[in-house]
């Protein structure tokens, strides 16, 4: 039955796009690689269109792969994030001697994995998506081959990733042992009946650890600063946003929806993780001397905020989660894009000192960066404020006022290091070494888009909120 495979179309289309770019790369002379950018963007757009067009299609492979509103919501997020990543990469990869075609292909391939993660209704399938995504990203992290940090980053990411994968896979095996299935619907059915309690609990716990690793929750976060710092900046942005979003998509579908009956079991652990994650992320960000590294810790802290939504649960919590994913994507991508735009003589211009005086040299970049920093710190009327407002409101509504209070205190700490960037840009004189800027229209487009989105989501959140609600509703 052909209709059976409709749900697979977005992922399949993305795969085709990746292959087309790969082949096209062979026939494109070095100075005409721009066509690869446009082909990749077209592929992403087509996937997004396909997803929208066939939203609500029948599940493929015995309902193990779904194209419900929830999956479509995340597919759109992935497509936009991947597109923005490519836009901010163009100039970066050319100047650092990274193979351009392969770079875009790997982004598209990891997007295939993400789409599967968001659509999967079966643990094994989810795992396949996870690995497809992860392996592509491992390679991306090491793409800047002339730079030792890049290789180190890829190596560390791969080793620890493999370790975490073991946990995840073991968890699936235990759950299979307890319930006799990897299909999430079957598992959910089995949850009602008699079950091997400890086996199931251990399985659920290990799956949780696997996901917690991917979103960079403490104490599974140690790899983040090293990996994020060493990887090429656009890849870091992609990891911090898209990979995290994909993991949260899985987390929401598996835990919030399918394993809702087990809420009381996993909530305390997730709550503890959330508190630990945001506190560690924010506190450690304070003493960083590199903006890129600070943003790595900031992404840990934001994973903690997002976990508040998981603890809150319910429709309100899930809505807050999805909305915050979108807000976080806009402001974080933008911030990394600005970092990617700066270049010192022989290294990345990612230190705080490199930002000194940027407000006078590059007013547009500095203004956008200020927006992103203020939004990340949660100042109204920007996306970060609105997102946090709904997160904390969901927590309070679910009776977790303590979590909201800790979240607010954490935001307070974060103001320090975010504002420091603005302070450097406007209040300090230019750094010692002269910097050249490799701004390009592509990159400016990415910065402009994310800046507008950051403001838009703050002032007019209604559209995104309704879209989130629609995505949640389609899970039922």
């Amino acid at each position, binding site marked *: 039955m052909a209709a059976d495979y409709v749900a697979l179309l977005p992922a399949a289309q993305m795969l085709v796009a990746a292959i087309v770019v790969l082949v096209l790369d062979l026939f494109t002379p070095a100075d005409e690689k721009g066509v690869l950018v446009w082909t990749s963007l077209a592929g992403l757009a087509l996937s997004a269109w396909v997803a929208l067009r066939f939203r609500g299609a029948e599940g493929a492979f015995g309902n193990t792969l779904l194209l419900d509103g929830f999956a479509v919501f995340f597919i759109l997020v992935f497509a936009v994030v991947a597109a923005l990543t490519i836009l901010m990469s163009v100039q970066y990869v050319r100047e650092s001697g990274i193979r351009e075609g392969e770079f875009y292909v790997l982004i598209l391939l990891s997007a295939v994995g993400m789409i599967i993660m968001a659509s999967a209704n079966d643990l094994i399938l989810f795992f396949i998506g996870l690995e497809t995504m992860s392996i592509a990203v491992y390679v991306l992290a090491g793409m800047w081959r002339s730079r030792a940090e890049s290789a180190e980053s890829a190596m560390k990411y791969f080793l620890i990733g493999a370790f975490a994968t073991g946990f995840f896979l073991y968890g699936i095996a235990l759950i299979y042992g307890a319930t006799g299935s990897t299909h999430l619907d079957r598992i959910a059915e089995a949850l009602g009946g008699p079950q091997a309690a400890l086996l199931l609990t251990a399985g659920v716990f290990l799956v949780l*650890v696997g996901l917690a690793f991917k979103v960079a929750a403490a104490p599974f976060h*140690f790899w983040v600063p090293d990996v994020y710092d060493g990887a090429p900046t656009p890849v870091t942005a992609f990891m911090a946003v898209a990979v995290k979003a994909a993991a949260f998509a899985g987390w929401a579908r598996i835990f919030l929806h399918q394993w809702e009956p087990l809420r009381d079991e996993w909530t305390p*652990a997730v709550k503890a993780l959330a508190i630990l994650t945001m506190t560690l992320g924010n506190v*450690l960000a304070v003493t960083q001397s590199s903006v890129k590294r600070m943003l790595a810790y900031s992404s840990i802290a934001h994973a903690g905020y997002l976990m508040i939504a998981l603890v809150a649960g319910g429709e309100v919590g899930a809505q807050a989660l999805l909305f915050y994913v979108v807000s976080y994507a806009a402001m974080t991508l933008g911030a990394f894009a600005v970092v990617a735009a700066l270049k010192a003589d022989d290294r990345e211009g990612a230190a705080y000192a490199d930002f000194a005086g940027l407000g006078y040299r590059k007013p547009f970049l500095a203004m956008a960066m200020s927006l992103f920093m203020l939004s990340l710190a949660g100042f109204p009327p920007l996306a970060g404020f609105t997102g946090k407002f709904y997160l904390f*409101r969901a927590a309070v509504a679910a009776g977790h006022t303590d979590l909201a209070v800790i979240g607010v205190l954490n935001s307070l700490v974060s103001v320090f290091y975010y504002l420091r960037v603005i302070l450097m840009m406007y209040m300090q004189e230019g750094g010692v070494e002269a910097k050249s800027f490799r701004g390009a229209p592509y990159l400016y487009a990415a910065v402009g888009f994310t800046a507008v989105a950051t403001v838009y989501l703050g002032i007019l959140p209604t559209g995104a909120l309704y879209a989130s609600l629609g995505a949640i509703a389609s899970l039922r």
Partner: protein
Amino acid sequence: MTTNLLRWIPLLPLAAAVLNVFFGGRWGKRFAGILASAAVFGSFLIALRVFMLLSPDAVLRDTLYTWIESEPFKAQVSFQADALTAVMLLVITGIGFLIHLYSTGYMAHDEGEARFFAYLNLFVFFMSVLVLADNLLLFFVGWEGVGLCSFLLIGFWYEDPANTTAGNKAFIVNRIGDFAFLLGMLLLFWEMNRLGVPSLDFAALKDAAARIAPDTAVLITLLFFIGATGKSAQIPLYVWLPDAMAGPTPVSALIHAATMVTAGVYLTARLNFLFVLAPYTLSLIAIIGAATALFAGTIAVAQNDIKRVLAYSTVSQLGYMFLAAGVGAFSAAVFHLFTHAFFKACLFLGAGSVIHAMGGEQDMRKMGGLRRRLPATYWTYLIAGLALAGIPPTAGFFSKDRILLEAYASPHGSLALWLVGWITAGLTAFYMFRQLFLVFHGTSRAPESVQAHVHESPAAMTIPLIVLALGSIAAGWLALPSRDVWDPWLQAVLGRSNPAEHGEAVNETLLVALTVGIALVGIAAAYFLYGRERRVREDGPLWGTLAQKYYIDELYDFLFVRPFTAAANWLARAFDPGIIDGAVNGVAGLVRGISASGRRLQSGNVQHYLFAFLIGTILIFVYWLRR
């Protein structure tokens, strides 16, 4: 009725402001002014269209989006236009446009032209949001916005610390009023919530008003009125307005005539259904209004700065408006607001023209004899002056006469209120014509060097003057005794208040005669004292007190500013460094310390990371199982 016309009234100036901020410098100086004027003119055309679509009891609505949704409260960014809003819009955009046009001439030599027009447009934007808002929260956005814009514009020439100080003063004094307004709004919401209608929409407020507890209504309206005294410069918060003339003259015209100061009057008119529930507040408003009118009028007599006279005259005329509102004659208040906008804008722009001609001189003692050199300015100034003095058949006559009639004959009115208003009318005529004679008549007292350069202003400046002068005559004819179109237009919104209808026969003719009589006496006195070369000596303790504005600024300085600064200084020197900074720095140091030691955990060693991973997993699993 819904329409999506309304949104464009604020959006056009906003768009122009944004464009001017970002590109104003690049497109050449002329362009900034043209763009800004065109945007406001566009808004004016739309406002006209809206006016034509409306009938007295119709309401147009335009909802943009849901702004805040937090059960059970919901606020929308939603505009409404009824008869009252339409009048306000026409004033704001119409007179606003003339002021913009005038500014293209006035600011032509200024460096910061693009910035100036961006602020000016932003002002119009916030003011139109204020009058278009269909709920109090959005209203508050406009309310705060005009406060911000006035701050920016008064301190526009920020190189001079005096201007910045004036801007700060305007902002801070307004904040006091804003605070009361905010309290009033919160209290009102509290009360509405109690009544089971958790909303701040004007329509919902109007429906529920009758059920609000009387004592609460008094408190709420009092708080709102305090807010209004800030924006509309009434006792005790009027002190910022005279200083606000530090900004460029078109800004004064905009603040004094078309925007800002009308916000407080508009607030009382918009919430008239609340105010009528609180007779106590109304009496207070009437008394404060009358007192402000007289008080500011006496100060205006003794000022020598051409703009300062006008500034106190604005405070005084706003007093009239509140007097009218206080006796329940909201329609008369808005009518005076409407006519006052024409002649006060005309006077300020005329003063700007004089200052322009005199090379920046503002002291009337150094002017004189400008009548022949600046004919267009003189004649328009004369007409607007007659209107301010309330001489028939100018607009000011009709509106002032109506207020005085209401002050006497309305059920809330009294002879005392009328008397104060009547005396003020005489003072108004006197100080206005004192100014006119000092500036335009007699022989010039300016130094030769200045005299040589005196010239009439360019057409961009004189055309607005002429239009405004025509308006200063004709605007009053909307409420001719024989054919009154004003009251019927606003009746549905502001309620009916026609003194002739509630009992007590009033000899209207006598009242009108008395009012015109005292105005003529004031003009005559001015003529005898200043009209001919013979000038009176301006000294003596009374004159000194008036010239020093009753030492109110000094009094406030002594009562509030100095103790406050002293307390702030003490806190800053003794309390802050030790206790607050100590605590903050202590916490910051603690966080930094933890952060630094946490950083050491980040060894870069994969084995360590994996070990931590494992330990973490075990600990959390144990925690999970023990629950």
